[in-house]
């Protein structure tokens, strides 16, 4: 591990951006014991921006996006989401999570609820929607992921691709302004990757802010405003998709791209 200057020093110097970004990370540090999973990460995501993050396994991609909605608590630096700074306070965490939807690699659907009920649960509990209102909302979003006809099925009855689309609809039902994806297609069989990426692309067109961890280069080229390469807990390189993939500047990114293309 290369020694780095204490990241928290950087945070104080940061001038406020002219338009408040959707996500602001400044010198974010996350430790697991002695190991630094995030070693001072600075990242700003503007409203409506689509950011793709890639990097080798264990480089801290999941940790990074899990810090954004406080599934992991960061140990240093600042995280500001939609103008709300993440502190240890439980209320702030709850506020931020209302604004941020997340889709996981392994779907994590509620196995005891139907696709529809999966989507209805959070709106009913968090926003106090009636059953009828929640059902209407859930159906609308299931429609959006092209699963209205599977609404009454339990997750065990759905294919992996369908499950992941239900998970996306479930996140959408909270009508978040920011969507986080952690390798949404890497647990899927190849033939199902396309249907899920297709749905995410359609969402991207709707103007929502997106941070997506993925190694799907075609998807990144079509959707990403910016690509970010992480290695060993830090952001090594970032840029537009074109330059990023075709003219990588750093040796580490070149090496990484050579590996995933093989």
């Amino acid at each position: 591990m290369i020694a780095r200057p204490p990241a928290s020093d950087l945070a104080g110097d940061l001038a406020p951006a002219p338009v408040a970004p959707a996500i602001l990370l400044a010198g974010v540090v996350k430790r697991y014991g002695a190991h630094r999973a995030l070693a001072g990460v600075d990242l700003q995501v503007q409203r409506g921006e689509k950011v793709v993050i890639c990097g080798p396994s264990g480089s801290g991609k999941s940790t990074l996006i899990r810090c954004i909605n406080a599934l992991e608590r960061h140990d240093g630096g600042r995280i500001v989401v939609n103008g709300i700074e993440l502190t240890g306070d439980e209320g702030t965490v709850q506020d931020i999570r209302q604004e941020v939807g997340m889709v996981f690699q392994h779907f994590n659907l509620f196995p005891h609820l139907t696709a529809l009920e999966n989507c209805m649960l959070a709106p009913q509990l968090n926003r106090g929607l009636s059953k009828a209102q929640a059902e209407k909302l859930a159906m609308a979003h299931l429609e959006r992921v092209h699963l209205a006809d599977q609404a009454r099925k339990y997750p065990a009855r759905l294919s992996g691709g369908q499950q992941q689309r239900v998970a996306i609809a479930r996140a959408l039902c909270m009508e978040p302004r920011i969507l986080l994806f952690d390798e949404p297609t890497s647990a899927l069989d190849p033939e199902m990757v396309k249907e899920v990426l297709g749905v995410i692309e359609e969402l991207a067109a709707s103007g929502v802010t997106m941070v997506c961890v993925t190694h799907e280069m075609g998807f990144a080229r079509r959707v990403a405003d910016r690509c970010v390469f992480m290695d060993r807990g830090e952001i090594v390189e970032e840029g537009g998709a074109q330059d990023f993939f075709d003219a990588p500047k750093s040796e580490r990114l070149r090496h990484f791209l050579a590996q995933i293309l093989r």
Partner: protein
Amino acid sequence: MNALPIDLDLAWESLPALFDGLMVTVFLTVLPLIIGLALAFPICFARMSSRRALALPAETFVVFFRGAPLLILLYLVYYGLGQIEALRNGPFWIVFGSPFGCAIVALSLNHAAYMVEVLRGSLLAVPHGIVEASEALGITRRNIFLWVRMPLALRYGLKAYQNEVVSFVKGTAIVSVVTITDLMAVANSIFEQTYDPFTPILCAAAFYWAFVNLIRVGFTFWGGWLNRHNAEDVAMPGPGRLALARLAGRAKVMP
């Protein structure tokens, strides 16, 4: 010695008394099951707490009331608590002064201790990712417990719960030592009057068997209904099933 060990006339005559005994057994099953379960929840939360000051007393409770034979617990409550002056003069003497009260207290504590472990194992079997997904949706911890963790834990722990309930029912047969005339006690007293070693006890056995199997059937239906979402393929993810196998090993003897 005739070929059939059962005296049918005696069996017929004993039926009403045995049935009354069965009702006492049912009563001494249902009430402690409710009280024990109600106790088990807070104790389980304490046991799973990261604060030592909560976890340690809860663990001690479980070790003692699960590790001590039920008969000793019953003696302890029935004979031992009477020693405590404050208790004897206090308002709770209505409970601790009566055999029924003592039996219910001892049985409930025993059941609670077992249920803490059943609950804990079932809650731990709930896949972490599913809880995380709920957190990410902004659902509060209380609601996650009520709507996600508990419903899933119930499904994962139902078998262990059934085992505990069945072995609990059989465990109630000792209450005659504190002068309660449950099913076992009725059978014993008929034996003492008639010196027929088979008829009353075998009849009682039939009653116990029927009661226990009624419970089993009930649980089977309950489980079928709960698991309607994966009637054909198993939806339970790997880690959950693993934890459950461990849980099954930890619960009382399997039926």
